[in-house]
């Protein structure tokens, strides 16, 4: 298992989201959402499809324009320095048209990280040891997602944003990714992940943000949320009922 030696990470937390509104075209995706992400927490962002979870993560990562409101990282607005200490793993991984090693090398080059050894260790960690020369887009779904996560780990992020990182994955990939999430948390990273898997949220998360129709209906401790959700929507969602 990985040693839980906390790294010296640039402090980007707490992440404060205040009255954040985001539109895509004419559609209002996030409607005045406010929340606070604690330092070194694992926050599961849950809610039905189309609730705005992915856009929420992308907005924190600076990938979408904000209509109104603000996001601050330890009281500082998002900038390239802050974004350089974040890493995002997308639900559908985008891999470069190269082999596995070159995908890693690209991130290493962009982020000025030097180290064949680091890349080798990370690939080993995500179970892709010996895959160096394999074309990345020929990997299986689980392997692609693990490579995507490996690229994110190479950044040594202070904030790790994971958009459904284990959706449709085999149990091996799922277990491996969950272990890595916990290890990164132990090392000091603040993690936000979206998921539809309530058991995964229970296994991993210290905090829950519950989204519905572009609004945050609940933000609370994970144990409290699963034991005693405050809103009827959250209760329905946890019980697997369809939210209309």
């Amino acid at each position, binding site marked *: 298992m990985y040693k839980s030696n906390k790294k010296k990470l640039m402090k980007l937390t707490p992440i404060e989201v205040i009255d954040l509104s985001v539109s895509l075209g004419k559609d209002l995706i996030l409607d005045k959402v406010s929340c606070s992400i604690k330092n070194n927490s694992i926050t599961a962002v849950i809610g039905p499809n189309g609730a705005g979870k992915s856009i929420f993560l992308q907005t924190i990562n600076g990938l979408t324009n904000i209509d109104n409101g603000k996001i601050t990282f330890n009281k500082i607005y998002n900038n*390239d320095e802050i*974004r350089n200490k974040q*890493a995002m793993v997308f639900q559908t991984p*985008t891999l*470069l*048209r*190269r082999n596995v090693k070159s995908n890693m090398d690209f991130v290493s*080059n962009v982020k000025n990280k030097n180290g064949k050894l680091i890349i080798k260790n990370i690939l080993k960690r995500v179970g892709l040891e010996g895959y160096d020369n394999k074309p990345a*887009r*020929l990997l299986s779904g689980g392997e692609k997602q693990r490579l995507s996560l490996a690229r994110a780990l190479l950044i040594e992020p202070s904030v790790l944003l994971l958009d459904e990182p284990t959706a449709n994955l085999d149990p091996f990939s799922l277990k491996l990714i969950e272990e890595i999430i916990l290890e990164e948390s132990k090392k000091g990273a603040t993690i936000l992940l979206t998921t539809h898997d309530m058991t995964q949220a229970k296994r991993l998360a210290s905090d829950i943000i519950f989204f519905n129709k572009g609004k945050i209906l609940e933000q609370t401790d994970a144990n409290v949320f699963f034991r005693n959700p405050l809103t009827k929507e959250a209760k329905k969602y946890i019980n697997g009922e369809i939210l209309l």
Partner: protein
Amino acid sequence: MNILLEAFAKSFELVFTLNEDLFEILLLSLKVSGISLLLSCLIGLPSGTFLAIKSFWGKDAFLVLFNTMMGLPPVVVGLIVYLLVSRSGPFGWLGILYTPTAMIIAQMILITPIIVSLTSQIIEEISQEYKSLFASLVVPSHKAIIAYLFDARYSILTVVLAGFGRAISEVGAVIIVGGNIDHLTRVMTTTIALETSKGNLSLALALGIILLSIALTTNFILIRLKIRAKRRMYV
């Protein structure tokens, strides 16, 4: 039929005896087309990339212009270059009419729009594919451009070879600005046209065979590369 067979036999003889005139023409053709292709790539690849990734006023007009220019009639290009570099033209002082330089310029005008237009389409596609990832990684523009060009290399190679194909097979423009002068500006296509009109079919046919061989070889290499790239999902 006999005349045709005779012409074929003669053409093979010219090729396999390494006929001096034939190879002089061949080398000049490759030189003119090669240089014009190189210069067109130097202009076309960055321009196409710029058009693909930058938003600016009039961008659509540029794209329409370059797309239209892909089908420029060679004789019209030849005529325009002729008017520009002829003694009474604005660039007459350069004294390049009826030289390989004028031929290179004419071919550049013909193939640069092909390189720009197709490069732009390819880079636009790959930049859309990589957009979110590169934004998330905060990839600097210059590194993004290098990545687009590198990762689209197989598709871009197709563009380059399409440009070469257009250049090497072109006759209308080079005959106007080059003049088809023996030992100076005579290239394969102009010689084929001239020798056919003179009834000297063997030399015309020999050059035709070489021209076809070049086209076949480049396409064969291209297809092999494409298959290899597809197998690795690099395209």
